[in-house]
């Protein structure tokens, strides 16, 4: 059943963005602004680099072992016992992410909308729907995501225009003046939230083309970082760092600041309605990933059949996991990051070393572990296609269109260059922030422009990957 399902590049990107942005928008901004004040938008660069590196690692593994998910790859490279141990740690991570996400939304709903509804009943209803989603494959979640994601993205893009009358340009100045250790800790916190990307490892086998998988990861991560950066920037511009750091749900408070007309009141509820499916899909994704992990460990391929019983178990666990909102905040912003910081850097090198050793052993034995690299094939094909001036696209008679289109590789290099440029602007900004504020302001502007151009390049890269995969 797992082998038959598949995701398109667009669906994978949408799911990844949903996974990376939904919970951090509820809880992370408050913590980031508390640590790095007005410089919070710049801390997303840490998360961007970390998530891009993690995505590359997952794509590398997927290229070595096509049609396998992360759990299966662990079992192949580390053996039955070693693989099961690593998988259990990975499952624990996903379990923590699931509990955190479920309770974050539960408390959010309770505080904002349903203060008198018992927590247990809210959780029961939430899990019943989750069980229903678990009975189907990830494809269903992906299709639902395709329905709601564009609306959410439009709502996010509309926010700056709706809030423009509330912006105070003085709130964000001066740039790059906070202490580096605090900015570093904030960056580390954002990295650990983006560590949720490991959940996508459970769906590596869903995409046939590694070129597309790579492009999806890159676009998803960059888009998520841009969304987070946009929200942080708006929070600082609307409320200023001091008010933002004292708010429990600054993203929701941001939506409360929209005053369109007198008769159009409570626009923030409209935003909650738009974002609810996204948040639910995020939880469903983590839930299905966990079931896939359990199914791999227990050697039962049809994970959908354990959904009802597993959902009830998770419901009880989420009920017992946290005693209140303070517990949840401590866990989400200070406890879980420690787990992620220690576990992921330990597990990743171990798996990389084991993969290299397995590959060398196989080569020594005269067996080819990996199939011919699809990426190289695609690149070769595109290069030849590009040399002919077509590259899979419709031929155009205009003079500009006669130039060969950029290959995916070229767009990827452009994306990397702009990520590097954003890093450079951050470093120069912090180096000059205290002494030459105009230079720091220029660096801040350069940082935001670099991120936007980087997003554009990633989109082009994704588009080219689609064309190249179709040509392969």
């Amino acid at each position, binding site marked *: 059943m797992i082998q038959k399902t598949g995701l398109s590049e667009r669906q994978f990107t949408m799911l990844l963005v949903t996974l990376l942005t939904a919970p951090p928008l509820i809880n992370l901004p408050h913590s980031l602004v508390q640590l790095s004040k007005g410089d919070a938008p710049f801390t997303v660069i840490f998360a961007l680099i970390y998530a891009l590196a993690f995505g590359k690692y997952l794509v590398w593994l997927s290229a070595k072992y096509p049609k396998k998910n992360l759990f299966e790859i662990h079992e192949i490279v580390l053996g039955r016992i070693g693989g099961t141990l690593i998988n259990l740690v990975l499952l624990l991570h996903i379990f923590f992410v699931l509990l955190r996400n479920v309770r974050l939304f539960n408390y959010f709903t309770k505080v904002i909308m349903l203060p008198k509804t018992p927590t*247990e009943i809210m959780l029961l209803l939430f899990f019943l729907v989750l069980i229903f989603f678990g009975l189907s494959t990830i494809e269903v979640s992906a299709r639902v995501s395709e329905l709601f994601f564009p609306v959410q993205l439009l709502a996010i893009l509309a926010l700056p225009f709706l809030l423009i009358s509330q912006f105070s340009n003085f709130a964000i100045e001066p740039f790059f003046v906070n202490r580096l*250790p605090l900015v570093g800790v904030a960056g580390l916190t954002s990295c650990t939230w983006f560590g949720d990307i490991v959940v996508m490892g459970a769906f590596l086998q869903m995409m046939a083309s590694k070129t597309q998988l790579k492009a999806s990861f890159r676009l998803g991560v960059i888009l998520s970082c841009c969304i987070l950066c946009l929200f942080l920037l708006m929070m600082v511009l609307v409320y200023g760092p001091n008010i933002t750091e004292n708010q429990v749900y600054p993203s929701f408070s941001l939506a409360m600041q929209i005053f369109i007309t007198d008769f159009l009141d409570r626009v923030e509820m409209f935003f909650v309605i738009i974002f609810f499916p996204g948040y639910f899909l995020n939880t469903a994704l983590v839930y299905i990933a966990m079931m896939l992990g*359990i199914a791999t460990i227990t050697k039962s391929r049809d994970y959908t059949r*354990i959904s009802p*019983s597993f959902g009830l*178990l998770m419901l009880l666990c989420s009920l017992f996991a946290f005693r209140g909102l303070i*517990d949840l905040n401590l866990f989400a912003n200070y*406890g879980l990051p420690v787990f992620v910081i220690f576990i992921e850097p330990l597990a990743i090198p171990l798996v990389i070393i084991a993969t290299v050793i397995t590959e060398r052993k196989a080569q020594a034995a005269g067996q080819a572990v990996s199939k011919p690299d699809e990426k190289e094939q695609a690149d070769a094909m595109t290069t030849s296609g590009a040399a002919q001036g077509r590259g899979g696209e419709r031929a155009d008679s205009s003079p500009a269109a006669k130039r060969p289109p950029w290959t995916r590789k070229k767009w990827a290099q452009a994306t990397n260059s702009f990520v590097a440029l954003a890093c450079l602007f951050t470093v120069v900004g912090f180096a000059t922030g205290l002494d030459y504020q105009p230079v720091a302001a220029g660096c801040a502007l350069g940082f935001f422009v670099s991120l936007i151009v980087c997003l554009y390049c990633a989109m082009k890269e994704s588009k080219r990957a689609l064309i190249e995969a179709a040509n392969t």
Partner: protein
Amino acid sequence: MKNSLFVVLFTVCLVIFAMNDIKAYRAKPDEAVNKTALCINGVTAVLLLLWLMNVRIGMPTRPFIDPIGMTVYEWVKELLA
């Protein structure tokens, strides 16, 4: 104080799901997925009983809240001061 409605609804769901899993297990006893589902149901039933008996159940999240989370929080507060 437990929410009675929740306890009733949860128990009904558990019974229905467990019955389905038992049926599936009796039809195909060799399938790993049926055994897994039964195990999960068993753990859920035990957890529910313990909860109803007011036994404090420690979750794996607890160490990341009290000793670790609190320590990191205090360290960050010192850093901010």
